[in-house]
């Protein structure tokens, strides 16, 4: 290769990388993702200074649900593994933390978190083996019905186990009275301090998930989403990818569960069951599966509506919840999957701002009288 050609290839390669579509199918670039995240993070950090505490408790819930939903999106949105039983991991995390504190007297938050991560991973690893035997190209029916039913079964089974082994799990009423989190120094956390703990953990987890999803592995998941058959033909062991992504999603779901346990100070069997899984996929679909922080946006919307309804129409909440599901599904223009959900809307808004603001700025400068011009 001549020197000139080599140089231009390197130049082109250098230009290609930031130029090429770095984000997911929606086309967000890393810079824009980072921009939105920074702004939101700053808002969340400063919020408790300005608002009454019940609002910051809502925001804590938003963050926890956002983590829960984003973990589901790893498999639902990216790898195309729709699961109706993600609450199995959420409940596993919550119950592990609660049992550790209440039944075993281990008050360290970090230890509880660690054990919950291990437990969630173990449950995911065990359940994943049979689950993927009935799903996927070459495994069984490409029709995911049996897999969906299996995921429902997982959640329901765990919830029934929780109801049955009363001495450990508190039976059908669960365990309550989980004390405030203890992070190792000082006294137990106040609500506001817990808010910041959730924030820090949330940011770390989201960052980790983002990195995983933007890596070679993450793009392999997207490939599997689009065309598993071709992925196998290209040399990918697709079962391994699906299995490991299932475990990863389970771990982050379990972390959300731990946080929720401390948030609500109690755990109940329905945290394993369909009732909670319903929330997880509503958040994912509402917020959009095609953008990384879509589920987070869905979470904001959901918690907001849940709060308003709990004040004015509490008895009708299941109806409204069901209505949200129906609207979220039917409002997806299925031919334009990329724009599904609220997340892409937010992104479009952000990009529009990103273009409109500099334009306004430049216009101001251009309109200022320029000393160099003759006129």
């Amino acid at each position, binding site marked *: 290769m001549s020197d000139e050609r080599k140089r231009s290839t390197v130049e082109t390669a250098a230009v290609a990388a930031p130029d090429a579509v770095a984000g997911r199918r929606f086309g967000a670039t890393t810079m824009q993702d980072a921009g939105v995240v920074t702004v939101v993070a700053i808002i969340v950090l400063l919020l408790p200074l300005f608002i009454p505490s019940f609002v910051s408790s809502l925001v804590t819930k938003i963050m926890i649900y956002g983590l829960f939903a984003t973990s589901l999106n790893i498999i639902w949105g990216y790898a195309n593994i729709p699961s109706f039983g993600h609450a199995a991991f959420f409940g596993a995390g919550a119950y592990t933390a609660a049992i550790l504190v209440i039944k075993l007297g281990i008050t360290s938050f970090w230890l509880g978190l660690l054990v919950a991560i291990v437990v969630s991973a173990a449950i995911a690893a065990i359940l994943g083996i049979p689950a993927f035997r009935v799903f996927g190209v070459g495994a069984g*029916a490409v*029709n*995911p019905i*049996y897999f*969906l039913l*299996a995921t429902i079964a997982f959640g329901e089974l765990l919830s029934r186990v929780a109801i049955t082994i009363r001495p450990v799990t508190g039976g059908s009423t669960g365990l309550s009275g989980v004390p405030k989190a203890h992070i190792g120094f000082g006294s137990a956390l106040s609500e506001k301090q817990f808010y910041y703990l959730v924030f820090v953990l949330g940011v770390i987890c989201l960052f980790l998930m983002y990195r995983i999803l933007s890596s070679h592995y993450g793009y392999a998941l997207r490939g599997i989403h689009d065309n598993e058959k071709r992925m196998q033909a290209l040399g990918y062991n697709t079962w391994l990818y699906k299995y490991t992504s299932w475990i990863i999603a389970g771990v982050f779901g379990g972390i959300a569960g731990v946080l929720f346990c401390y948030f609500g100070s109690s755990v109940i069997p329905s945290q394993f069951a369909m009732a909670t899984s319903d929330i997880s996929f509503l958040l994912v679909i509402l917020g959009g599966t095609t953008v990384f922080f879509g589920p987070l946006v869905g979470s904001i919307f959901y918690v907001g509506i849940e709060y308003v309804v709990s004040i004015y129409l509490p008895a009708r909440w299941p*109806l409204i919840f*069901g209505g949200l599901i129906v609207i979220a599904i039917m409002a997806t223009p*299925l031919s334009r999957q990329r724009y599904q959900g609220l997340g892409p809307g937010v992104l479009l808004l952000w990009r529009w701002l990103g273009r409109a603001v500099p334009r306004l700025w430049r216009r101001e400068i251009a309109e200022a009288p320029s000393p160099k011009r003759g006129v």
Partner: protein
Amino acid sequence: MSQALVTGLNGLSYAFILFLLAAGFSLTFGVMGVLNLAHGALYMLGAYIGLQVIASVHQFWAAVVVAAIALAIVGYALYWFFLKKLYNKVPQQGVLTIGVSLIIANVVLWIWGPISHTMMSPRGLTGAVHVGSLGFPIYRLFVVGIGVLVLALLWYMQDRTRVGAIIRAGMDNRDMTVSLGINYGLVSTCVFLLGMALAGVAGVIGAPITGAYPSMGDNLLLLTLIVVVVGGTGYIQGTMLGALVIGMLDTFGKAYIPSVALFFSWIVFLAVLLLRPSGLIGRKVF
């Protein structure tokens, strides 16, 4: 031992109720490939509508007919507004029907209130047949009778009629069936409505045994799923077998070892799903 016979009748009648319920689901799932997770809620709707009709006009059979028609209408609305647009998108169908089931459950709660209602078995079917020292409730015998009748009809339709042949052909190869000039869309819609009506009938007939309470939709949906998976789809015999297995297991379990009865059926469900996903007598899906 003799008590076991009574429990056996209870199990059998329960099995037939499950069969009536699951048959509807099996038809829509097996024939159309549609995942309708609102099925339990629809059963509940049927039960409550039936309850209302009985409370108003004291006519049991009128209640059955009204429930069947009402559910067929609701089912058609479900198909027309939603399911038609989600052709082949199974997870979306599942999510949507979960949403619908929540709506229906809450509407029922809204209209009829949170108290459970016990529906008395209709006059003429109360009491029991006494054989020796055992009493076999007449209503349960009636349920078994109706169940056998419906089973026979559906089995006949599946194996001996043209419609049944069309359905079986369509399950194998939809495109081919359509290209033979058969209006498979019409057939599958009719089958769907039949499944809905069946759920309504099951709701009314089953209510004196299963009761009518606001959260019954969820329980019954889960039971339906278990029955259909264990028995297998595509053959009505499979659904009957699944219903028998689960009905008997559940009833005997509750009678003799109540503590584990709760998740016995679930273990069976998972085992079948993972070891023999096509079910005991199902069409080979795998």
